[in-house]
């Protein structure tokens, strides 16, 4: 049996994606309001001098780039996992309510002034919100393996969390606090430190690892639930892992970067055909693709409006929404 034929060979695809991530990561390190000369920076690193360039690099650029890498990889991977599980190309991480409930948790930290008391209250609130939101989705979906029940439970939690977030904005006594919440909800990687990296990294790493364990069942689900189940896969366990992995990784990512939409929708779509439509191959490819896209978008916001930096969530939505419409139109055409 000859090996499968793809539009592009799988090792080459992963090589190209890895190069794209490395280039975007380096660009994220070097592009910004203050220009950094790479040679000067290297000299400062090796000599141990605390010059401005090395301070900017270590305190601002490096944590921002690492967060961009982690958050983007998370969004791409979870998007691919959810699309594979639900067998729906329009699914994305927000569909199970994790982004909305993480946002609500962070907004509550803002609202009660906890974010002012200590910096990590915001991401911690986000993670707590994500955990609770996903727990509710899990309980609402019950023992049913039906993707529809799962989506409906996610929609219910998303709507409720969004309503409570609006309530917090509505009731905020200080208009500046409301504005701050609004800005945070738009998603950004600016002004993040290594504290944010250390806080989110274990959850993101563990969540992504859990999601990678469901690669094979996602392949089996290509043939539907009955076939997958008779191939020895426990779909209840698969769903629990999906929920747990998504809650950990997207919850942590949203907690440190706010809500960055559409990456989880767009990236798996762009890469699906290149991976031969195989969910198990799409998972790692989407992690690479998500990281490259998020890092590139984060560089773009710095270049597009250097004075008043555009929020990355706004940029991804501006690109993602038309793309979503294109998908809907294409699917309508295919159905007709």
């Amino acid at each position, binding site marked *: *049996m000859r090996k*499968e*034929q793809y539009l592009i060979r799988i090792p080459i695809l992963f090589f190209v994606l890895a190069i794209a991530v490395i280039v975007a990561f380096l660009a994220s390190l070097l592009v910004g309001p203050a220009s950094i000369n790479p040679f000067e920076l290297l000299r400062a690193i090796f000599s141990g001098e605390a010059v401005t360039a090395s301070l900017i690099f270590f305190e601002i650029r490096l944590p921002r780039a690492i967060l961009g890498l982690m958050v983007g990889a998370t969004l791409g991977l979870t998007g691919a996992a959810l699309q594979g599980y639900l*067998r729906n190309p329009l699914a994305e991480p927000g569909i199970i309510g994790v982004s909305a409930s993480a946002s609500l948790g962070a907004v509550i930290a803002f609202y009660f002034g906890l974010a002012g008391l200590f910096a990590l209250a915001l991401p911690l609130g986000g993670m707590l919100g994500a955990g609770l939101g996903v727990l509710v989705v899990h309980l609402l979906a019950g023992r049913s393996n039906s993707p529809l029940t799962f989506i409906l439970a996610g929609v219910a939690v998303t709507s409720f969390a969004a309503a409570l977030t609006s309530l917090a904005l509505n009731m905020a006594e200080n208009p500046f606090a409301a504005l701050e919440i609004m800005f945070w909800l738009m998603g950004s990687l600016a002004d993040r430190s290594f504290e944010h990296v250390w806080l989110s990294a274990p959850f993101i790493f563990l969540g992504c690892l859990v999601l990678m*364990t469901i690669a*094979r069942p996602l*392949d*089996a*689900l*290509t*043939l*539907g639930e*009955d*076939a997958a*189940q*008779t*191939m*020895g*896969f*426990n779909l209840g366990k698969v769903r629990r892992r999906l929920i747990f992995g998504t809650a950990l990784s997207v919850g942590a990512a949203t907690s440190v970067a706010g809500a960055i939409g559409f990456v989880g929708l767009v990236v798996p779509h762009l890469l*699906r055909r290149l991976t*031969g*439509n*195989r*969910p198990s191959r799409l998972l790692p490819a989407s992690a690479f693709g998500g990281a490259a896209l998020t890092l590139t978008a984060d560089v773009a916001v710095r270049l597009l409006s250097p004075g008043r930096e555009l929020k990355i969530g706004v940029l991804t939505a501006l690109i993602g929404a038309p793309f979503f419409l294109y998908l809907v139109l294409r699917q309508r055409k295919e159905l007709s």
Partner: protein
Amino acid sequence: MTPVSIRSLSKSFGQRKVLEEITLNISNGEIVGLIGPNGSGKTTLLRCIAGLLDPDKGDIYIDGRPRHQVDPEILARSLSYLPQSGEIHWDVTVQALVALGRLPHQGRWRALTDVDRQAVTRAMEACDILEFRHRPVEQLSGGERSRVLLARAMAGEPDVLLADEPISGLDPGHAIDVMDRLSHLAHSGKSVVVVMHDLTLAARYCDRLVLLHDTVIAAEGAAKDVLTADNLARCYGIRAFHGLAEKGLVIVPIARTNQGDVPVSGKPDGL
């Protein structure tokens, strides 16, 4: 040892009884046809054997062990299920789809081995789909798609193959192709249980027919003993033309039993 043994199996959905006290053995090397009118419990019985439904009462034994005691991952290697729905959600290539049949033999992280690849090639050869193995599944005709799905079920090289209406929607030529392959598989020593509505093909290909009606097995045995005019009238509510062709019985439904005197006598061409 009997690969599948069903003892006193009962299953209800809510208040509606679907199967009652079903006892059935499936042996190696035979193809058993489950027939009966719509709603008679054929698919339910097949889903119980496959482990997709738990019976309310009774037991199913796989190779002498109660099915619920067999690890699902081990069961998946010896039993393959071909669902009626024929779902394919992503546009993978034919070869990639057939290779999914090897998933029960792979670990969580292990890629396809040479043994897996050989099994996939054998399944594709058996189903005559080798020539279009690189084609995306969305470009297949109905008949090709059925053969690809059958090859997927065969790629795991199971001891027992459960096929739910594998020839529904196929033209007679493709239906014969699929039944030929199932029959060949059974006669190579495996067990095949197939749900079907085409009584002529059931009579021709199945070593044994099990006629389900009103929650119980109404008749079981060779085609000539099961597909009698009396059984067809009682279970399906039809009168049928019975003929004898070179390769077995020919059953052509003619009319409902309550439709008065529609002539059902005659002789097939060539006899």
